[in-house]
Structures are given as C-alpha cells and as structure tokens.
C-alpha cells in the first residue's frame, strides 16, 4: 500500500513538468534526477531505476441494482443437439456478489510498448469454439496478426459470421469437427459481433487489438491487464449491452467516463481501479 502511494506521488509530481524535459527518453529517469528524495523510495521498493517499468491494471465491475437473472434462450433448430443444453442469454451475466462478466477493458493507445514476456503471445492461437450451440468463450480477444481458430465441436453445422469493421468481415460454414483460421490486419475500435445465421440465438464478441493489453471481466467481475508499461494510458471500457461504460461509482463517488474512455496512470506494480459499480439503467439499452 505504501509503495503504491509513493509511486502515485512521484508520478503525479513528475507529470507536471514533463513536457519541458522531453529530452529524456524515460520520464521516470527525469524524476530520479529531479527528485532525489523520491527516487530513493522508488528505488527501494520498485527496484532499479531507469529500467522499463511495468504494472498491472486491475479492478472489478459490479452491478448496482438487483442482479437480473439471465433469460433463457429457446433453441428452435437442431433441437436434438441444441435442445440438450440449457441455453441462456449471455448479454448480461451478473454473478454472485454482483460481479459483471464480459466487460471488455483494453488499452486504447496503439503505439504502447509491449512487455517482452507478452511479445510471444502473438504466436499463440486463440480458439473460438462452437460448442453446445453457443460460442465458447462469449468474448474472445485476439491481437492483430494473431491466428483465431474457429472450431466446431458440435455434431451439427454452424457458421460464424464475423462482423468486423476495419477488417474484411467473414462468414464461413464450419462443418462438424471442422475449423477455420482467421487473422486480422487491423485492430478494431470496438469488439466485433460474431453470430451464427443457422442458429440465430448464438452470439459472441471478438476484441481485436494491436497489443496484448486487453482483458475481459471474469464471472466475478474482476479483470486484470498485466505488464502494462508504466505511465499515462487510456483505457476503453465497453460492454455489449451497455455500450460504452459512461459512468461508474467508485467508493460511493460517481465518476463520468466520456465514451468509456478512462485515462489512468499506470505505476509499477498494481494499479487498482477498485470496485466500480455500474448503474443498472446503463444496461437497459
């Protein structure tokens, strides 16, 4: 806790005069030069100065209001397969403790530095499965250039209609046991819808970003973006039903977020945005 506070302090101090010291490649170093007192504490806690510093952005979204129960979806096609599963609408999933799942949080800045550990993630394949007549997972995240494999584990045919905007949309039939691979050259400003025309109740979302910094809130409402370069970044917060999350309440204080875009300062270590309660009315679009 102390470390965070100190880091906040140092960052907030250095942010004001930063523009006049642009000759320094790493603003943190300039802090070190200017504020020997500050550096001591930073060095003590955060490790060697002047090295790239990275932090995690985390937080939790909760539903302010009575948690709605997910409406059931009626499979009216391929009932022998799809009828077996209990299908529910995943548009708004509020878990126990009112955590809101599937809220997408990503770093809007495109030229952001990528942590060496994360560079390799681009080579991993992201799997989007048609399973049990629903998409698994409901929200996928893929980086530009990364391969998205859309599979079909069901015993009926599906098609995956990927409605990207900056990338050519695609709509391929995926027969039982088949798969198709997609890569995306451009990033998408907002998640793209994935649907199945054969089974109109099926829906998923696809986040396409140029870097690995995106997270999707878990059933308990928590999210974490790891190894974000320290400094000022802009987060985009979005949910399929609410659209831009334009207002949250943190610690009882309402906070407006224009277009769901929140500027934060990432510090080395954890940057915790705390518990963000979202008004139920926001989801009533």
């Amino acid at each position, binding site marked *: 806790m102390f470390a965070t506070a100190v880091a906040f302090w140092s960052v907030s101090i250095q942010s004001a005069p930063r523009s006049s010291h642009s000759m320094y490649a790493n603003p943190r170093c300039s802090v070190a030069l200017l504020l020997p007192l500050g550096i001591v504490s930073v060095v003590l806690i955060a490790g060697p100065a002047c090295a790239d510093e990275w932090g995690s952005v985390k937080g939790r979204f909760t539903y302010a209001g009575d948690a709605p129960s997910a409406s059931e979806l009626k499979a*009216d096609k391929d009932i022998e397969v799809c009828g077996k599963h209990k299908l529910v609408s995943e548009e708004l999933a509020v878990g126990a403790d009112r955590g809101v799942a599937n809220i997408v949080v990503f770093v809007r800045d495109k030229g952001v530095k990528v942590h060496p550990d994360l560079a390799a993630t681009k080579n991993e394949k992201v799997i989007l499965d048609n399973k049990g007549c629903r998409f698994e997972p409901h929200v996928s995240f893929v980086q530009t250039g990364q391969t998205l494999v859309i599979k079909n584990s069901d015993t009926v045919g599906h098609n995956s*209609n990927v*409605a990207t905007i900056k990338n050519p949309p695609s*709509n*391929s039939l995926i*027969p039982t046991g088949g798969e198709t691979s997609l890569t995306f*050259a451009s990033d998408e400003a907002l998640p793209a819808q994935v*649907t199945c025309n054969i089974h*109109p109740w099926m829906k998923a979302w696809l986040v396409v970003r140029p870097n690995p910094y995106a997270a999707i809130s878990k059933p308990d409402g928590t999210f974490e973006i790891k190894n974000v370069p320290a400094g000022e970044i802009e987060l985009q917060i979005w949910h399929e039903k609410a659209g831009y999350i334009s207002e949250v309440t943190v610690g009882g204080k309402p906070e407006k977020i224009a277009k769901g875009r929140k500027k934060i300062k990432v510090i080395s270590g954890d940057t915790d945005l705390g518990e963000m309660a979202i008004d139920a009315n926001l989801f009533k679009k």
Partner: protein
Amino acid sequence: MPATEQTWRDLKVLHVVFSVTAILLLLSTIAMLAVDHNRPWKKYQRGFQALETWSAAAKVDEQDSSSFEATSKELDASLAKARRADLDSGIAEAFLTQVRMVPADAEAADRGQLDIDMLRQQSDPAERLVLRGDLLQRLSDIASRAKFREDLCAGHLKLCKAKLDKNRADYELGVAENATPKALASLLAVADATRVQVLAATLDTQAANTHRKSLEATLKKLTATEDAAAKSLADHRQKLLLLAKTLKDRAPNFGKSVLELPVLDAFNGPLRIDQLWLPQLTLNNNFRDVARFDRCNTCHKGMDKSLPGAPTEGAYSQTETIPIQLPTAPAAGGGVERGAEEGVKGDGNDQLEQLYGFRLSPHGLFRSEAPTVGVVVPESTAARAGLMSGDVIMDVGGAKTLIRTVATTLLLEAPQWGKPLEIVVQRGVPQPYSSHPRLDLFVGSTSPHPMQTFGCTICHQGQGSATSFMWSSHSANTPKQGHQWHDEHGWANNHHWIYPMLPQRFEESSCLKCHHQVVDLEPSPQFPEPPAPKLVEGYHLIRQYGCYGCHEINGWANPEKRIGPDMRLAPNYHEVAESLVGDPGLPALGNAVARWVEEVRSSPDGKEARQRLLDTLERDAAAGPEAKLSRRSHQLATLLKEPETPGTLPKVGPSLRYVASKVGFDWLYAWLRNPQEFRPSTKMPRFFGLWDHLSGKGLEESQRYEPIEIRSMINYLLGSSQPFQYVKPYDQQRDGITAAPDIQRGKKVVQVRGCLACHQHADFPEAVSTHGPNLSRIGAKMASAPNGPAWLYSWLREPARYHPRTLMPNVLLEPVSLPNGKVSDPAADATAYLLGSTESWKPSDIPAANSLTPAERDATNELALMYLKERFPAVRAAEVLKNGLTADQSAIQGDERMLLGLAGSNRDATLLNYVGKKTIAKLACAGCHDIPGFEDTKAAGAALADWGRKESSKIAFEQVSHFVMHQLEEKHGYSHAESGHSHTALAPRAEPAVDAPLAPDLAYASKAEAHLTPESIDSDTGFFLEKLLAHDREGFLWQKLRAPRSYDYKKTENKTYNERYRMPQFPFNAEQREAVMTFVLGLVAEPPAPQFIHKPTPREEARLKGLVVAEQYNCSGCHSLEMDRWDIRYKPESLGPAQAVADYPFLSPHFTAHDSQKSLVIDRQGRRHATLIGMPQLNPETGKPQLADEDGVPIEDGDTEAVVHRPFMLWQDALIDGEARPVGAQNLLVPDDAFRAGVHYPARGGDLARLLFPVVIADEKQINPNVKPDDAWGWLPPPLVGEGKKVQSGWLHKFLLNPQTIRPSAVLRMPKFNFQSHEAASLVNYFASVDGAEYPYAYDARLDESSLAEAERLHPNHLESALKIVTNNNYCVKCHVVGSYAPPGNPKALAPQLERVHERLQPDYVHGWIANPKRFLPYTGMPVNIPFDKPVSQDLYVGSSEQQLDAITDLLMHFDSFAKKNLSLEAYLKQQPSAPNQPAATPQNPSVPDAAAVSPPPAPSTKDSRSPGVATNLK
C-alpha cells in the same frame, strides 16, 4: 458652232456642289466604317480574346512559378544523378559480347572493354563523367555501325532482287520470242543463280537486323534510368512550352492590332462573324422551310470551350459567388511580423504564395484593379481549399476587398493564425463569355448535341441570324432582368419575331421537339445528373393529375408521323365490357360471350376476345327485334374496334361504376363540393365554389345552382351504380380464423405489408409517397355508406374485383398464425384499423339527402330547363319540363329519355338524375373516372399537341388581366376601393397555398406608384403578369392553371350559366404550375428532320418502356432500381488500405490498368476521385444514414469531436487508390469531407425498404435480441439491381403476373399487380437491358440436359454426390427449404426453396452465388459453404472446391429432372385395368400426376416426397 469657254452650268457652283458631295461621301464612308468598327459583337470578341489571353497567361504563370522551377531543378538533379551513377558493367559487357559476334567489330569491342576497365578504375568524379560519356558514345557508335552494315546489306538485297527481276524477265521474253531450249535453259540457270544470291542476301540482312536490334535494346537497357530522367525533364519543360505557345497565339500582337484598326478592320479583319449553317434543321419562315443560320457564337464565343483534358467541363463557368474557408498557418504572433519571423519574405504576392500558395494577378480580367487570383500552386493550401485561378476575391473575413492592395493586406493581416479564414470569391465570367453548362449533354463535341450539328436556336429559339442583342430576340427571365437589359443593351421585346428565345425558366421546353418519350430525359446511368428536371416533373404531373383526360396530346400527325409526346387515354375497351356486364340481356348470349366480356374486362389489351365480342355485338345488333342486348350496348360496339394509333394512358381517377357499394351521400357531397376539405393532398381538382372572380348576378347564379349540381351528380352516380359482389371474409370454421379483428395488429399490417409504399397516413409521418391517396381519414369516408366497411375489406383483399384495371395491387393478405397460437385475418385487422382512421373528420353542412326545399326545386327546374332548351325549342322545352316525355315520344334518344317517367311520383329524383348526367357531361368527369353511361365520351378540353405554338390572337384573354391586377393589388396593399366581393358559406374561401413567398422586387419600382407593375412584385409573379398583360401564351396558361374560372370575370352577364368556363382548379403550387407550363409550352408539333429525333437503341428503348411501366405501378416504391451513387473526392489513402481477400479467381474484380491509373490521379486540390455505387449504411434504430468515426464506430448524439465518416456498402466493385475494393468485402468508411466535396446521386426507389428497415429490426428484436441489422434487408423488398443477370426472363414474367413466395423470411410478399402480359414483358426486358443481359431469350449450356452427360462421365454420380452435400446436416438444408422439407426454427432464418432454383435463377448466378454469396448480395447472411481453398468433405463429393461448386450448380439447375428420374409410374399403373390403350392419367387426375400417389413411400423426416432424392438423403 465654235467652241466657247462658256459652260452649261456655272463652274463655280459645280465646284461647290462637287466638293460638298465629296465631303459628304467621305464623311458617310467614315461614319460607315466607324459604325462597322463599333459593331456590338466586336466588343464581345475583343473581350473574349482578352479573356483567353488572360487565362493562357495565368496558366503560363502557374507553370512558370517557383514550384515549376523547383520541379525543373529536381528533375535536372535526378538526370545528373542518373548520369553520375555507375553504369551496369554487366550489361555493358553483355553488349560487348554481342558485338564480338561480328568479327569485324571485335577490335571495337576490345576498345570498349578497355573503356569499361578504365571507368572502373577511375575514381575522380569529373573524369568518370567524361569516361562514361566516351564509353556510351563508343557503344552507340558501334550500334550505328551495325545500322550502317544493315543498310548496306539491305541495299545489296535490293540490288539482288532487281537483278532477279531482270533475269526472270529475260527468261519470260525468251519464252515469248520462242528462244531455243538451250538458250532458255541458260537463262533459267542465270535466274536460279540470282535467286540463290537473293536468298543469301535476305539471310544476311535479317541477321544484321537482329544484331542491330539486340545491340540497341541492350544499349537502351544500359541508359534506361538516364533516358527516363531526361524524358521527364523534357516533358516537364514541354508543358510550359506548349502553354507559352498557346499564349503567343492568343496574345495580341502588332500584326493583329494593325488589322483591327478602324477602316482596316472592314477588310478581312481578324474579328469576324461566326456562323453555323444548319441546312437540315430548317426554320419555318412564313410557310417556307429555310436553312437555319445561327450566329450566336459570334458573341458567345466561349460556348463550347472546355478545360484541357476534360471535354465535359466548361472552361469558363458562369459568374457565381462562392464562400471559401482558407486554412491559415498555425503560429503565435500575427500578420506580417509573423511572416518575417517565420522567414516569410518578399513582396505581398510572395508572402501570399508562401502562406497560402497563391498569387494575385497584376491586373484583373474585367476590372483592372480587382484582386484576381492568378497562380494557385497545385496541392497548396489555397488549392485544397478550392481557390482557383481567375477567382476575384470579394471579401476577406467580412471586409470588402475591391482593390488588390486591400485584399493583400487583409489576407496577410486579418487572419487569426491557425484558424480558417472566411473569404468570398466571385468565380466565373459573365455572359456572353461563359461556356455552356452541361457540356456532357449540350454543345460539347462528345455530347449528344454537338454545336456543329445542332446549332443554338433549334433549342433556344430566337433569331439565329441576328448579331445584336436586341434582334436576336433574347427573352428576359424576370422583369428586372428585362429592365437591366434595356438599360445596358437597349433591349426591347421584339414582337415581330415569332420564335423569341425561351426565357431561362422554360428552356427545357424545347427538349420535347425530339424527345417524344420524355422518360428518356430522366436521369440515366449514362447521364446521372437530371438532364431536364423541370420538364420531366411537368410530364409526371400531367400523368398524375390526368390532364390528358380532357386535353388530348396527340403525338401522331398520322400513323407514320410522330410529332411529339403522345399522351392520350387508352381505348375504353374495359369500360365497354363493364357496361356489358350490367346489360341484363348478356346471359342470354351464352357462357362463351360472358367469358369474352370478362376477358376484355380484365385484360383489355388482348385482341382475340375483343374481336369476338365485337362480332357478337354486331351480329346481335343486326338481329333487329330479336336482339338480346340493349341499344346502348350496340352503340358501344364500335368502341371495341382498334384505332390505328391507340392511346396508352389510363384514366387517373378511381372507377365510379360501383360507387354506391363504397360511399354514401354525405361524403360524396362534401367531396364534390371541395375535395381538399376531406383530403388536403388530393389530386382531384376543385369544380365548385370558385367564386373569387364573380359578383352580382353571376355570383348569385353560382350560389343557387352549384349545390343542386352537386346533388344531382350524386343522384346520378348512386343511381346508375352497378351491383357489386363483396369479397366474403375468411370464415371461422372453414379457414380457422380464431382471432377477432384488432386495431393494433391492423396498424402493423398497414405499416409493414406495403401500404406505405404508395399511401400516406398520419400515424406514419415518415411515409411520404403520394402515389396513392392519403389514408388518414379513410374511416370517415367508409362510414358514409352502410356497406363501406365491407367494401374496404373487399378492396384490401381483392382490389381487382372492384376495378380489374386498378393500379392498387393485391397484397395477398392471407390468414396469419399469431405467436399465441391463434389465427388472424390481416385484412380484417387492417380494415378495423383503417375504419378508425378519421382524424375526427365528418362531413358538415350537408343538405338532407332525400328532400328538396322549394327554392332548391326551383333551381333544379331552371337547370333542367337550360339543358332542355339546348335540345328543344323554348316552348317545347318548358312543356317537357312540366309533363315529361310522353310514351309516344319514346323514340327520342339521348339523355332526355331519362325524363320519360317525369310525370310519375318521383319527379324530383328523375329531374335530379337528368341534371346530374348533364352536369357530369358538362364537367367531363368521365375524363378521369369510369362512369356508367359515359363509355363513349370524348375528351372535353382543347387539344394540346401544338399548344406551344398557339397564336396568341386565337387565345381568349377576356377581362382576366383586370382581374389579376385587382387581385394582386389587393394582396400587395394598393388602395383600390373595388374589393367588394362577398363570399358565402357554401364554399369556404380556400385559396390554395400558392404564391407564398411574395417578396416585392422593388429594385426597379416603388410602392409610391399608383399601380402595381410587374416589377413591383416578386420576379416570378412579375414575369407572368407581364406576359399576361402583353397577351402572351405564358401569361394565359399561368392564370388558366391558377384560377381557370377567372376568365369569366365580368363576362357572366353576357353568358348563360352553362356557357361559363368549366375547367376546374388543380391544387398545384407555383413550382408545379411552372413545370406543367414547361411541358405544355414545349408541345409545338414541329419535329425536326427525322435524323434529329431521338431514337434510342433497342436496349435503351427496352429500358425506357420498362421505366414507364415501373413508374406507373410504382415498382420503385418498394424496390431500388438504381443504387446510391457517390462520386467522391477523397484525400489519398484516407479510405484505409485495401485488405486482400482470397477467393475464387472467377470472382475477382476486373479493372483495366488504365482504370487503375486513372484512380491514382490527384487533382489540384490534392484529392483522388472515385465512384461508389451501393447503399449507405443506415442507423438500425432511426433508419437515417449512419455516421461513424474513423474506426467505424457509430457516433453518438452530441459527439461533436469525432471525425465524421459514412460507412458505405458497395454493390459494384470500386477502385480506391488504384486498388480494387470488391463487393461484399468490407464496408468503406468514407470521410464526410470526401462525400461533401463530391456529388451524390440518390438511389432510384427503395423508399419502403428504407422506411421499414428500423421497424422490422425493432420487431424482430422482440423475438431475437441478437438480430443483426444487415439481416433485416433480407426481409424487405430487395433491390433489383442486377436482376437481369440474376433471374431467368421467362420465370420473371410469370412471377410478375402471378407472384409466388420466394423468401420465407420476408415480412411482406410481392403483391399481385394487374399487369397486362405485355407490361410484365416490358419490365422483364427493362431488367435485362439495364444489366446488359441477353433478352428475351438466352441460351445457357448448363440448362441443357445434354451438358450433364459429360459431367457424369467425368464424375460418376455427379448429381447424387452433390445432393449429399445439399442434404448433409452441415450445409444447405440447415436453412433452405428443399422440396417438402422445411428446416425448423424462426422463419426469419429460413432461406428460399431450392427445388425451384432451376426455373428462377440463371446458372452463372447460382454458381457465383454459392462460391461467395456476399459478392452478389453484400448483406446476405448466407455463409461461404465451399471455401475456394478447402473443399467440403470428400465423403460427400470427391473433388476440388470448384468441382463441388459445379456439381451443386448442376444439381440445382436440373433439380426437377433429377427428381423426376426417381419417379415411377408403377404404383400408378397397377391401379389401372389391363386395357392396353388406356392413357396413364384418368380424368380424376390432372395431367401431371399427383406426386404423392406415384412416389416411393415417404421418408420418415418428410411428409411428402415431391423430391424423393432429398427425402432419402435427409435421414
């Protein structure tokens, strides 16, 4: 007689006389020369010369600007660099190797090699340059030597050949002279030897040639970069040289100036009259056709001048004022100080160039001091902002800039740096210097009307041979303009020239001379900018308001000669048949006749039935007393004969033959009194209560008689109405209707089942089509008759039952299953809803239907007497009125027969009936409506075919100008006491809402004048008032359309009531009136020589014919016939990169290299041009165009920061930045500024689809929250773009006449229109012609069964395996209905029946569609089933993707015969007795056997097995 010194006259006197006459002669000669020197056209020619010189100089300046120098230097540098660069020694050595192949050059090659080595070793740049030059010189010498050798060889070859010729000739001579065989043999030997020499020489030459060419090619390769650099430098300089040459040619020089001097210029000076001689386009000069001479371009010299390289863009536009936002450089500080600080140097012009990128010209064009833009540096700030050379800066940041220095100072000092500077420029040149607008259409050499062929006056009229402003008969467009012309040019209206120029407002009129079809003047793919919008609007108004019902416009002088547009009513066959239906004698003629009557009734254009009916009627008439039919029916027989050139247009009003089944007395009374009372938007004109012009006795008569006329008409209409069979509602028992009619459901039916494509309703304000009547108060109308609701239900279910020729289609409202399990009757729902739509309107002030007051009875008697007096002498008339016709007078024919029973008890009704029929005849109601008893009525009004040339002396202006003056003066507050008209209650004074924007044009007149003048009111009214006062046609027509009855002003005293003018008042507004006038004034019946009459190509003709049908039936109300077209101008790369999509090669877009190059061209504003055809994306909630940010994310309300983009769905492959953007790949994100800088041609049609788009999405969201907006397009009327290449003509024809369900997911079905067969054919041909498809027949080998044999040979079980794919659980049957199999689930996810594809679609379309559906229908949800790189499972079909594609196409195109193959007659035959001659089908069975009876046992998953193959495979 000796000679004397004496003269006959006094010499002194003679000297004086002589000197005086000599001086006079001299003076008059000088005066003559002076007048000649100052002829007005010379002034304009000099002006034009100055203009041309100025613009040439500006172009030279622009080229010669600093940027030109910079480019020159750059190119120079790159040339120098190319020269300094190392030569590719590899190529050089290859050259030498080639050289060595000729031994003679070996030495030269060695020396060359030495040079190369030296060059390689040399390091000093200067030395290297010299060595390099030497080397290249040496190499080129070698090449020259090779050329020299080649020439030698060629010379030698020539010599040999000559020798051979000579030797052959010697031999021939020898033969001819009978030389000895020996001698002949030797001659032959010599010739042979020479032939060998020739052969050798030929080979040598060829070798030398090859050698030389290869040397040159290598040398060229060696110097390629250098040559290219040298060429671009030369090109760059050449441009300037060319411009300079143009300037030199144009600029005045000493020689020219001398020739233009007074006196000298009278003798072949450079200024001359230009003249177009048009011998074919004759001019009627008092009964004699003479050749036309147009000298207009003597003054209008810039008419055909276009910009270099753009033949359709005028070089000199007409003067207009344009505001421009000029971005300024960002900076702190301001003004010149800032300039100095930032290094902006030089004089004002230099600073302007550095800051904005333009310079002011040292002298203005028409005013020397005017701040005129000279040079605009291409792609500079100024160029991007749209500033052009020649613009005169009028205003900078709100301050006027009349002189150059002020402008310069303001431009340098006024701006807030960093913010755009608002400036106003005047662009273009005044008349007569400007170029003709629309050079793509007119005057331009590539246009359809080149100046040399058409001249000017054939369109504009006026006196072409005149060379002065006055005598060329210019016509002012407004009184103000006339006044200005008078002041500037001494202009006055020349009444003596009968073809004065058309004023600008009517200039489109002339198009009708040659464009008789009129629809060819609508926007077309070739000319998307409307060629004649006003005229076309006039045409449509005349069609919609049915003017031709009374005023025939006959386009034929005789059956061989077309003279203009043809707008006449179609023959009344249909009405005759309707009348026969009402003849009680008809059943006695038998069933066959009844059938013919029915056939003529519903399809009057068919010849066969009509001819037979005509014969029958004539035979019956000849039977005398035995005749079965009434005399009236016999009279109508002649109407069934076909005229030589029958009219084609329908009556515009609804049929009134069964009107009693529909509406009652009260509503009819209110309606006839003033149709706008009930329906403000009606097209029905107003006949009654038009009293503004009346006073005294005339007014009193109108007030007394009109109510009786209205009542009598109603009496006749209701009394003569024929009985009508209502449609029976669906039955609860029989049809299983379980839901009671519901207003809310009915509202939805009206909203989504297509009504709004033609009708308006107050509940749906966004529906604006005026094709059908407004339904907001329809309930009030239907409530007026007891059976009104039943009628409305019948009408909704089967409109053709009421009127077989109605334009209202049958929208096929069949019982619907509701989500709650009940079944509803949508027609009953809609009826319930519409009956409730009244807007609380009720007929008011309606007299009692069944009784007359004594005063009314008197008026009725008076009216009847008036009509009787037209038939009988006065005394007799009075007697008939009193006693009626007696039985012995029953031989009397005509309407008076109606008075036979007058003496009876029902005197009032009989008399009203008689007066009613007479009134209907008088007012010509039958011009628009089908009314019993009026089948043989002729057009009542003046024919209009040549009205545009009607002599004004033959037009009765009566006292109308006084009336109009009074009216206008009252309106504009001129105090004239004479405003004593009183208006009583019968007709609320409802002046149509016209002439609203009356802004007095007081520039030339003041209110102080006692009288109103044309110049003291707004220029439009003023124009017409002036024309009216001058007794011109335009004035007459204007007032005739405004207030037709006003021509009775002060005339009623002198006329009987029935002699008054009868034309009703149409609810036109001022623009509509002018459009109608434009059309009528163009009807001149003066077709030019046949070669000038517009004759479309057969394809174009098919398009136009189809267009007429499509417009009549409002096809475009639902369907897009043409997509939106955006001609955008975008900043390079601003539409994002093209992303490659791998697909079947046959689907890739094809553009030529030339097209790609063209799309890379950057204009002066730094933008590229592209044409996008498709659909702008709509907001799924509002249905308005979607706006998005640069990432494609929709912009939310109130977001002002986002950079606006418009997502656009392509329907035609486009080229952006030189790269193809294929249909179906990705929506383009078009920056809003690119859209705004370009041109937008809106889609033709599809309004209903766009209107319903958000509605059906919202509806579907209730069921499926996941609904994707794009899918909604699939439930709405589809765009018909590409239809010609998509469907088979035969199928489409059948479908149009009897539409079937195609897409189960659609929310509304294609309705059944009452098309005649030929109308449907016109539509089919339309689609084929616009898409460039074959029609009416097209052969496709894939449809031919013989093509299957080869496929089967290559791939056994070709179709069976394909069926495996179709029926596999992963593919087609997931969504498509196949045969009797329908996939379960939401109908919105169902796809069309595959069984019928073979008759509906074209094979190529099916093939491409399966390959990638989005390439054909970008919004489709159908996935790619067979990816081009990944065939479907080989278990189903062994083969590549393409083979599988072919197999499915083959299967679908032969589905029918494939299914039939499995059909067995065995079971069927078993039932038959063993009689050998018994045919297979028994009378109980239709000729096509019932499939269920003959197919194998049904498969478990299907109920029926029309397609047995499918059934077996579906398991």
